[in-house]
């Protein structure tokens, strides 16, 4: 113990050079910091933690699944449902970071599908107008959700849960009216016609590129010469685009900062002048819009809509967001995490069908893989950051 006095030391910004173990290499360095590699800094980002889980899942399937899973068509096959889930998951993640839930999003998919289908098939609106009506409905409904949550002060969990039931029920009633008694409304693809908008919301992109590649023998093709994969399904592009935009908003914009603040501690945020109610309203609208986008994409894809569309998607979206590192309590998470979380979930969902494991084990497998992926993600992150 050095209980000798040293009354010289008065200026705290001047480090005690005698006992310093690491001499400063540049004026900025601080003896109170261990040096860490760029790698560590990277892996410490919450969004990149989910990658560890993804890697684990991929390795698993490389070992146990049929190699067809990792051909171009196999990857597209896995990515398409992952993308649909992912669009919802990104919306759900933003809202979760903002401190709220929207359990009505799965029902919203069905409801938006009904509105869209009715506008096209029953009211014979042109596609552009039908889209307008559908998205306007989503905005109205998101606002309604937000208003009820904010005005009553009830937890959004319970309010949106009520709308989970209400919207699902309204969809059934509406479908029966629109179709004259059936739970399915058909003929939507035909009614949508073929326009610029059709290609934005359905089909594949880069088809030219793919058939060119097939001609050159770079990608697999059918005997008749058409490529087995004719292009990238548009939902995958929407998914990637949304992930990028959402990440940018979260990390780089004022609104992004407000989302974190509103979710982290709404009282503190309000005290600092963040318009918490406005932020939350916009987030509820965003989620409703994401649900509507998925509705439009799937309805245009399969050409029909039914009463069970989007069933339980709200939970899958939340799961994907949580796998991706979002906290259920709000204030923490990332869109890119939800991106990888959706891919993990999508891959596990579809992946078993590529293996020889008995399909009766599907749920055991799904649960086991999810658990493994998140535990692995967690262990890796703790190892690397030195948390304990």
């Amino acid at each position, binding site marked *: 113990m050095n209980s000798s006095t040293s009354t010289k030391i008065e200026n705290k*910004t001047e480090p005690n050079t005698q006992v310093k173990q690491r001499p400063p290499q540049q004026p900025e360095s*601080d003896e109170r*910091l261990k040096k860490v590699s760029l790698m560590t800094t990277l892996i410490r980002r919450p969004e990149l933690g989910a990658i560890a889980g993804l890697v684990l899942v991929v390795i698993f399937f490389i070992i146990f699944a049929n190699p067809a899973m990792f051909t171009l068509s196999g990857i597209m096959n896995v990515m398409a449902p992952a993308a649909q889930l992912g669009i919802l998951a990104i919306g759900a993640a933003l809202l979760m970071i903002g401190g709220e839930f929207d359990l009505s999003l799965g029902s919203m998919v069905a409801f938006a599908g009904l509105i869209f289908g009715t506008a096209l098939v029953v009211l014979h609106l042109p596609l552009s107008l039908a889209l307008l009506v559908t998205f306007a409905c989503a905005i109205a409904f998101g606002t309604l959700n937000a208003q009820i949550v904010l005005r009553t002060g009830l937890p959004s969990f319970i309010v949106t849960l009520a709308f989970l039931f209400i919207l699902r029920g309204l969809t059934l009633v509406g479908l029966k009216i629109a179709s004259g008694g059936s739970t399915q409304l058909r003929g939507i693809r035909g009614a949508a016609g073929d326009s610029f908008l059709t290609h934005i919301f359905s089909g594949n992109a880069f088809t030219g590129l793919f058939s060119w590649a097939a001609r050159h023998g770079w990608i697999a093709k059918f005997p008749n010469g058409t490529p087995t994969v004719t292009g990238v399904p548009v939902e995958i592009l929407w998914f990637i685009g949304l992930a990028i935009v959402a990440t940018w908003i979260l990390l780089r*914009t004022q609104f992004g*900062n407000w989302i974190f603040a509103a979710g982290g*501690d709404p009282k503190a*945020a309000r*005290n*600092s002048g963040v318009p918490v109610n406005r932020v939350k309203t916009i987030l509820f609208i965003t989620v409703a819009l994401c649900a509507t986008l998925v509705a439009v994409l799937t309805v245009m894809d399969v050409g029909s809509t039914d009463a069970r569309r989007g069933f339980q998607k709200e939970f899958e979206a939340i799961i994907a967001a949580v796998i991706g590192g979002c906290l259920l309590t709000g*204030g923490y998470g990332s869109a890119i995490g939800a991106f990888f979380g959706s891919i993990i979930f999508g891959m596990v969902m579809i992946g078993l069908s590529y293996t020889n494991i008995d399909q009766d084990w599907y749920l055991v497998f799904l649960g086991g893989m999810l658990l493994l992926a998140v535990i692995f993600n967690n262990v890796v992150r703790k190892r690397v950051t030195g948390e304990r």
Partner: protein
Amino acid sequence: MASAIFNDPKTPLVEIRNLIKHFGHVIALNGIDIKVHAGEVLCLLGDNGAGKSTLIKTLSGVHQPTSGELLVRGKPVSFNSPRDALDAGIATVYQDLAMIPLMSITRNFFMGREPVKSKLGFKYIDIKHANEVTHDEMKKIGIDIRDPEQAVGTLSGGERQCVAIARAVYFGAQVLILDEPTSALGVAQTSMVLKYINLVRGKGLGVIFITHNVRHAYAVGDQFTILNRGKTLGTFQKSEITTEELQNLMAGGKELQALSDELQGTV
């Protein structure tokens, strides 16, 4: 930084008249009147639970008064949210800090008032600039933070308080309210804060300064209002009162004096 607006010096910047505030069946404030003029530091003193924080929270829009009047530059106002108070030029450091532990220091520092840059029509936060400002402002107050992107939750109690003060100071408006800003601060940081209060007074701002430390209060205060169990015990000009009298006025002041003698120390 703050640009002080000089208006008629006789109109108080902020005035509160007969303010009453109930929480359910709890009566926190029971008829309070205060005035703050430009270029004046009003010290709010009082026992724990006297209602100081409640008073300034009402003034900064966090709570709505049960009854009573609020005047800013002579005009009656009613704040529905802290945003309104901020817009009216009232910046506050809350006792419970209004910080979000999971967010970085920079993001907390600029929360609600992010420095926005625009490129190709896209508006985004100028993170580099924000980090620099945060680091510099914290250094000014005497804290050399390791990394402005560090989460506020990992800071020490005093460091966190410094972020809150540096923030209010940086965005300082016409009236600066500080609720026990020096309570968790080290000696160096305390002197910075007191220096700063002196400085903004000089610029013509009004300051409301809450503290339990009579010496700190006396060092910078022009007026002293003492609260007790939700009521004002009186307001004194610095000229009317000495430190000792002030100390005695506060509940327990005498005991502390006695104790100090008994322990042969100067408390």
